[in-house]
């Protein structure tokens, strides 16, 4: 259950510190991952050697910066097996990517009577933008139900089949739930949506750095993710869109770099990806995101997935043994991603997090940007432990020991 790559932890400087006098156990990877040396170095190298504005420059530094920036785009296209680098739009992250589709696509295509479909367990970032798009257009937002009192049953596929009428213009769903750990059957969902002519949008924030991902095999129209959850820097993310859809889409933001001709009266747009990248892009972080792709592929995403799965299995078994614990999402032994969310009857998640922190264990407690789901499950918050490639079984033992101490303290 230790990472299958010897010394992989040495790649992550942040892991080698004490928190409250104890070696840090970082189990908040669902919120953001740590960064390997090679990604940090990519930033430093860019700023020390190549830094320049891109696209409109003809001097050496500007050409180097442009090549590196566009090279990162190509690298990321390759990482998700997109057909064309022009299908990769750099954004700040998942949230901005989804907003871009909700606004640009939503504004052009949604009208009263249309249905936008999503699920009962979306992150606020894949929910509120659709509420707004529905409100702006007069479309109706509907939710595919989640099965099970603890959300253990996943999406209700029978209900989905009923909901998927020709009125459905767009179906937005998460690949992996950041709260339940549920892995959605995304290729199947895309197939079903396509059958009624609905456009699909996948929130891949929790999957991109954790499992192999191939947009053409999945068959989605749009896919959104953040760099910071996949060993990349903050401030950079991606919207993948099928080229033919992107070329029909109006720009979301306007300004320098995305125009062909500008007069005082009007302006015309470049094709994708420039059309959607107004202003100076986040050059350095895009390049570092390319370095993150290299890092993850060098380890092997199938191996990362296997390690995540092994860790969460052990964690589920050990956590289930704790008295009074309620674990949400798929049951022990069922397929789930490398995170687990739980609640104690008598200790609030924030107290759990504060106590675990005293033991050097970093957890997340709260509604995980999933308020409606929490309410549906009769919870106000959970504590979440989320694993990544550098976590070890020993760290799970540290987690469990800390939880035992907490229970004892509050049982007092």
């Amino acid at each position: 259950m230790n990472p299958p790559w010897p010394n992989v932890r040495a790649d992550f400087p942040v892991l080698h510190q004490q928190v409250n006098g104890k070696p840090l156990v970082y189990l908040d990877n669902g919120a953001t991952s740590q960064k390997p040396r090679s990604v940090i170095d990519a930033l430093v190298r860019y700023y020390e050697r190549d830094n320049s504005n891109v696209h409109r420059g003809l001097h050496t530094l500007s050409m180097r910066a442009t090549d590196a920036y566009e090279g990162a785009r190509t690298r990321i296209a390759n990482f998700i097996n997109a057909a064309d680098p022009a299908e990769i739009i750099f954004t700040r992250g998942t949230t901005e990517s989804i907003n871009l589709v909700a606004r640009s696509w939503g504004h052009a295509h949604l009208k009263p009577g249309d249905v936008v479909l999503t699920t009962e367990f979306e992150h606020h970032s894949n929910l509120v933008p659709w509420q707004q798009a529905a409100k702006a257009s007069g479309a109706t937002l509907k939710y595919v139900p989640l099965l099970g009192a603890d959300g253990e049953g996943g999406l209700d596929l029978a209900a989905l089949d009923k909901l998927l009428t020709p009125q459905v213009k767009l179906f937005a769903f998460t690949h992996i739930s950041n709260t339940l750990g549920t892995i959605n059957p995304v290729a199947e969902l895309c197939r079903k949506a396509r059958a009624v002519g609905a456009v699909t949008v996948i929130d891949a924030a929790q999957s991109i750095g954790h499992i192999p991902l191939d947009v053409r095999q999945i068959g989605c129209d749009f896919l959104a993710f953040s760099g910071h959850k996949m060993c990349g820097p903050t401030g950079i993310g991606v919207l993948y869109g099928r080229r033919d859809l992107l070329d029909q889409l109006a720009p979301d933001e306007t300004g320098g770099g995305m125009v062909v001709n500008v007069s005082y009266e009007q302006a015309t747009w470049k094709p994708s990806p420039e059309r959607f990248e107004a202003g100076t892009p986040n050059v350095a972080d895009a390049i570092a995101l390319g370095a993150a792709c290299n890092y993850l592929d060098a380890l092997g995403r199938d191996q990362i997935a296997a390690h995540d799965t092994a860790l969460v299995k052990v964690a589920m078994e050990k956590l289930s043994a704790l008295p009074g614990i309620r674990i949400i999402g798929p049951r022990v032994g069922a397929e789930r991603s490398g995170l687990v969310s739980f609640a104690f009857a008598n200790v609030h998640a924030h107290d759990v997090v504060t106590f675990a922190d005293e033991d050097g264990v970093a957890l997340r407690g709260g509604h995980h940007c999933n308020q409606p789901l929490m309410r549906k499950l009769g919870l106000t918050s959970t504590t979440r432990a989320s694993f990544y490639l550098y976590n070890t079984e020993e760290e799970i033992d540290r987690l469990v020991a800390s939880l035992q101490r907490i229970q004892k303290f509050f049982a007092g």
Partner: protein
Amino acid sequence: MQDLTDLYQSVILDHNRRPRNRGKLPTANRVAHGDNPSCGDQCTVYLRLDGDRIGDISFEGSGCAISQASASLMTLNLKGKTAPEAETIYAGVHELVTTGKVDEDNLSDLAALAGVHQFPARIKCATLGWHAALNALKGDPITATTETHKD
């Protein structure tokens, strides 16, 4: 980090385990709700004003031990008080949870909240119920959200 027992004193644990005046107040003539959007804590305060005094007071809600205990302590300390008196008591609590200074004789059991000042992220938890109570006193039905307050 300071020792957690500073934060989770026995008074806090006791009030968390057995919150006083918890539940709806059937005779309430004022109610206000508080939200801590960063962490999802919620608190509704019910109170009955008898003339200019708080005749009775209760709270409902969910949150961490700090927020629950602080709300419970709040009900004990505000019952029977006028609005200006309540403001004064809260000023002392605010001083306490932001600086840790216990210099008011009349803080009594509230002194248990002093440990909060070493955990700035928890200050909002400790003040949530108080904000709701002050809003209820003002007859302000608007939801108190801790994000609009500088603490």
